[in-house]
């Protein structure tokens, strides 16, 4: 998985958990909370959907890695690739 693909995965999840938001201009290097109406429960949703849909675990200590699309892709892409390598 590339980082671009990873950003798309995260964005797809956000589209479901924040269906009122316009995601067409999300800036990848800006904190998601600074450009979208997302609260702490929404971030738990992102964590839950990564777990449910993709089998990816994000420990609580790493939640800040999901702050922006770029930081999320930086953090998650190796996890996706490690998972793919295992299967």
């Amino acid at each position: 998985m590339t980082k671009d693909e990873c950003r798309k995965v995260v964005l797809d999840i956000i589209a479901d958990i924040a269906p009122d938001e316009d995601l067409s201009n999300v800036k990848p290097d800006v904190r998601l909370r600074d450009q979208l109406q997302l609260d702490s429960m929404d971030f738990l949703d992102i964590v839950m959907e990564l777990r449910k849909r993709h089998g990816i675990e994000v420990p609580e200590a790493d939640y800040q890695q999901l702050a922006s699309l770029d930081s999320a892709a930086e953090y998650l892409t190796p996890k996706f690739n490690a998972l793919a390598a295992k299967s």
Partner: protein
Amino acid sequence: MKPARIVITGVGLTAPNGNNLTEFRGNLLQGVAGIERIDVRYMGSQLAGVCHYDPLKYQKKKEVRVGTRAGSISIYCAREALADSGINLETLAKDRTGIYVGCTEHGNVETENEIHAISKFNYDTKFWSHYHNPRTVANNPAGEASLNLGITGPAYTIGAACAAGNLGLIHATQMLRLGEVDLAICGGVSESIHTFGIFAGFKSQNALATHADPHKASRPFDLARNGIVISEGGCLYTLERLDDAQRRGAKIYAEIAGYHVNSDASDYVLPNPIRQAECIRASIARAGLTPQEIHLVNTHATATPLGDIQECEAIRAVFGVGCPDTYINNTKSFIGHAMGAAGALELAGNLPTFTDLTVHPTINVDNLDPQCALPGLVLNQPRKVAKVDTFLNNSFGMLGINSTLIVKRFVP
């Protein structure tokens, strides 16, 4: 000191056959029921009353996703009631407004959904939703309305089985009289059609209706009745003290005349006509009326073989002789049993009787059960009547809770 006079100034509702009072009343007068078939988890096709209001009229998509159906129904009904009352939400004293929502049950739907969801993950609870607790707390349906409307006064639910709709109004009346709030948004809601457990429970009690024609399935007082049609729905009112309502020039639907709540203390599920009659009599006494002065009785009857007979026994004991001006009807024959919303919805369906002097009928009575043959029962066709100044609404529930609410034509 006489207690403050309390009046109904706004109505918001969603029923299986109407999403506002005009639609609902129109269908009750035209004999239009609202029962359909739905797919119930583990049980397949079942009869149910389904509401078709637009949740996005007052909620964001995210609110609908995160919240519960009962919360959504509360929000819709509360917003509709406020709009109907003419109260401006922007200038409303939100800390002096209470939300009192009657519920038969809450949390079954959300818990069943979560268990179903984790069943796909070998019941590993790490897949259990973090929304489970806010969705299932008993105050959820009132709390969601408070969040949506920005109401900062007391907002909670009243658990009273299927008497809950009446209890919402009764509790609001009490809180207004105590001066706890200046405006009450009150009534009842139900999301019960989304839980298989309620269907399965009634089925195990042999109390779930079946019929080839959905619209004929809910048939209180008919000899061929065979149980309850479960429905969702909601109805919330704005209640105010009369002087407040008059000060702002409010439209007044009716005045709360009397009420009573008691308990059978005799069985988990079987009704007790002696206690029901006591409840009816006590409400009439509190209203300062006699049975002869009650012009319309809306029955709780749910179309169970025994329950209908027992309520008729209670009504006969109170109104049996010497009440030629008392008419009797039933709204569940149109919309099924809307559980926690039932009392509030059925009250709304009959409120316009004060102005159109037409009693909506009990439909689906092809062969009247002789044990339910009450004088004054309005069967199958609406009836024009000379006078309706008072209306008594029965709502009873499991664990033997009985509630009777009387409203009267508003006379300044």
